[in-house]
């Protein structure tokens, strides 16, 4: 099976083409956040580099979130539309799992995280069990202190992701020195090859219902829900 893997969930843009577990081509850039300009030409260039036509792809895998809302939408819209229009399979993978999947340590929990500002993070708790990445605690948006509390019970924790280093001070206070370590810096960038590998093991998604996992309501909706207890008659979007 040929897989095109796309990650635009944060500043790096990573693409890979796989033939089952074999890597055919990959490309990662980290110089601008303008995924709208870069994504499609880079997909075209990657396919061309291995002389593949879009129709020869069997499955499209995309980092589904969390991450930058705009980045996620560009990646997910592109992946979803490509899969729909080419009539191919679509698979969504957690953008945090993509980072966790690069870390191979036994008996240790792997905690990928993204800074979500004002003391909040997007994070998940993962573990590698018999060579397979497993989610112990689902990805969520939470306070850094709340994350530290959740992690207390684990004897060994490895943090991964570019943003994790900036919280080193807080981790020092929250954990015993031997409890915490950081992944090698080269693992802090998402690699679409790993995304593709994770996507190999997953069932295809239903394309029409596929949307990013923002893990956060918009501010307007959160406030509205508070006031209205989330009640509304009928659908929010209607065909006219």
């Amino acid at each position, binding site marked *: 099976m040929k897989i095109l893997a796309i990650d635009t969930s944060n500043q790096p843009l990573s693409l890979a083409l796989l033939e089952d577990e074999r890597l055919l081509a990959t490309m990662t850039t980290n110089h601008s956040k*303008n995924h*709208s*300009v*870069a*994504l*499609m*030409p880079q*997909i*075209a260039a990657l396919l061309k580099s291995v002389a593949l036509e*879009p*129709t020869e792809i069997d499955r499209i895998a995309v980092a589904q979130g969390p991450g930058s*809302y*705009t980045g996620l*939408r*560009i990646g*997910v*819209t*592109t992946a*979803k*539309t*490509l899969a*729909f*229009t*080419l009539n191919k399979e679509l698979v969504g993978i957690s953008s945090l799992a993509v980072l966790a999947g690069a870390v191979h340590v036994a008996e240790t929990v792997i905690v990928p995280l993204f800074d979500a500002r004002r003391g909040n993070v997007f994070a998940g708790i993962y573990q590698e069990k018999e060579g397979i990445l497993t989610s112990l605690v689902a990805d969520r948006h939470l306070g850094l202190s709340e994350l530290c509390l959740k992690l207390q019970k684990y004897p060994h924790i490895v943090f991964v992701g570019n943003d994790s280093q900036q919280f080193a001070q807080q981790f020092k206070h929250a954990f015993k020195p031997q409890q915490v370590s950081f992944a090698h810096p080269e693992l802090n960038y998402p690699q679409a090859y790993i995304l593709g590998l994770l996507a190999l093991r997953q069932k295809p998604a239903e*394309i*029409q219902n596929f*949307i*990013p996992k*923002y893990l956060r309501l*918009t*501010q*307007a*909706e959160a406030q*509205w829900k508070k006031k*209205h207890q989330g009640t*509304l008659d*009928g*659908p*929010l*979007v*209607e*065909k*006219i």
Partner: protein
Amino acid sequence: MNSLKRELILAFETSCDETSVAVVENGEKILANVVATQIKSHKRFGGVVPEVASRHHIEQITLCLQDALAEAAVTYEELDAVAVTYGPGLVGALLVGVAAAKAVAFAHNLPLIPVNHMAGHIYAARFVTPLEFPAMALLVSGGHTELVYLPEPNRYEIVGETRDDAAGEAYDKIGRVLGLSYPAGKEIDALAHAGKDSFKFPRAMLHEENYDFSFSGLKSAFINTVHHAQQVGEELNKNDLAASFQQSVIDVLVAKTIRALHAFPVKQLILAGGVAANRGLRQALAQRLTRLDEVEFVKAPLTLCGDNAAMIGAAGYVAWKNDVRAQLDLNAEPSLEFPWVKGALK
């Protein structure tokens, strides 16, 4: 003009709060025009929330694509090009349409046509009658109020525009003051027809030697009148308030349009944009134009005044015929604008 081959454009529009995909034949016939509106969602907040709009677009985009292709009963092999709105509009909303259009164009090796949303609004009129050049367009919507000169096909030049609020924006703001639900344009139009212009609100810039508009002074005058009445416990007639507001908007729009028509002789005046559905405006312009009988008055069909992809397909067809192409690096341009007409009085 009866070409043997039918030329089909697939068009995407996601600039604000409508997700739309259309299939247009030869730039003049709608085979499908699927529109999913988010109005009900944004009503919760009293106006369009950009992040919410972007999220809805991604939920809807391939559903609309599927429905449009099914309704038009065409396959990708039959398509000639993909057109997409790339501005102006909300950046996050535009990006969804641009990404989807690029994916389809790339997947099926089709040319990609970038379309200015305002050119789309003008070309909604193409579904009524062929455009004849030179032409003038009065574009009135929630985001824009401008006079656009079209010397020839695929050329658009701004003659005048609003200095502050768009006319549609003013409607929504005074609608809020009157306690009407968003969007308020249609209801104000209806109230206005039952009232009379008794408040004599200001007509901004009416006598200035240019083709520009301003609606913030009118809006302030309206709000002050209502607040003052509330303070002294006076009950104002809603119909008369609406009629007075609308008459002031119409007087300015009509006067500036007629002034522009004298300076730029044209064959057609095209009325387009969301506010072009306003009955009062349609009637007032039609009446004044009877005195300029060499100018044909073309109104966008009521059903195509709001945002839709069919109009993007019509404008995209003309751009395509004029060799306009975008590459796969096409980006959204939220503040895209037409160039100003040469020698414009600014």
